[in-house]
């Protein structure tokens, strides 16, 4: 039985990572902030997957590793499994989490929402809300990329939130690099 901490500790840390990098060091350079946040996630995912696979036999193929991510890894980190896994069999996987834990309690600045409904739906205001939430997604994306890379699957991970601000679903896509396809 492992040691546990209150979930608010992890949430507080995540909030602080995002706010220190986005509002502090790299206030004018969201691109750089995003890369730093992703790097922190990568480190975490890399180490976590090492620990969670300690007592398992080696994965024989990529699908097995992805399934491990969807089930065991996701449960350890987000306390639920992935809801839906899709693939085009050409190296892209889409993982859908209908209630992504780290976004489930996030609120969107009401002034942004109002603006969005007054102007046309694709207005800039909505982009702002998406950007704010997007910043919080670099960390989990980094975790997944770190975990997969440690399992021998170098990939790119991106997240997509379809229904703002409800954040009902959440996708990860894996684009294998060419040499890992064989």
């Amino acid at each position, binding site marked *: 039985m*492992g040691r546990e901490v209150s*979930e608010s500790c992890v949430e507080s840390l995540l909030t*602080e990572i995002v706010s220190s990098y986005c509002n502090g060091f790299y206030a004018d350079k969201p691109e750089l902030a995003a890369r730093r946040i992703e790097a922190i996630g990568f480190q975490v995912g890399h180490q976590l997957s090492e620990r969670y696979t300690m007592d398992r036999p080696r994965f024989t193929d990529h699908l097995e590793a992805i399934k491990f991510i969807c089930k065991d890894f996701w449960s350890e980190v987000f306390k639920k499994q992935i809801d839906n896994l899709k693939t085009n069999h050409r190296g892209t996987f889409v993982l859908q989490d209908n209630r992504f834990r780290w976004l489930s309690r996030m609120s969107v600045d009401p002034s942004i929402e109002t603006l969005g409904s007054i102007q046309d739906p694709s207005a800039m205001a909505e982009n702002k809300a998406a950007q704010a939430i997007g910043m919080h997604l670099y960390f989990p994306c980094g975790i997944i990329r770190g975990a997969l890379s440690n399992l021998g699957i170098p990939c790119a991970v991106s997240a997509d939130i379809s229904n703002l601000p409800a954040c009902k679903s959440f996708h990860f896509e894996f684009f294998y690099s060419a040499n890992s396809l064989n």
Partner: protein
Amino acid sequence: MAPVAPRSGDAIFANVERVNAELFTLTYGAIVRQLLTDLEEVEEVNKQLDQMGYNIGIRLIDEFLAKSNVSRCIDFKETAEVIAKKSHGDGFLEGVWSWIHPGFLRKQKRKKMEKRKIENESVGLKMFLGVTATVGNWNAEGTTCSLILEDNPLVDFVELPDTCQGLYYCNILSGVIRGALEMVSMKTEVTWIRDMLRGDDAFELQLKLLKQVPEEYPYKDDE
């Protein structure tokens, strides 16, 4: 409505959502690594960690107060009474601490103890036994004490390389305590006395009460 009895730190911890501590430990470690890379100066990293802790502390105290049923203490004396009367005996800090992780019990205790000391209340330390942290090293005036942790989830898997000798790896904790206490009107200075990562036998945080800030409202009810 009758006030609800305060809940003990253990009870709170049992009821909050919890996660595997490895995620927390490793995330914190990765943050420190990234900060060391980005800020380069160890001293700057210490400052940044403290600031992050402070920001967390000022929010954590809210969650603690909401979940622990501890009523607002107007002064040291009242706090002392609350502590003396309730068998649970959890102070603000103790609650906050325990609720973040079992080691947090110590922090809350400390605060209560401090208040008590100042009022010369002779409530025994015994109520605090059985938790993982201890409070001690009081000065004669009762304004300074130490929080001693022998167990600290933040440092699992951690070893400091020679290049980071000036780093206070757990500096976020001192920030959390400082922030949380400030929100309940106590200005404090929190410094590390002992650090296991530097070869000491325990973690010891010194908590020094600078002043108690009277609460000021930005508005007046009747006007």
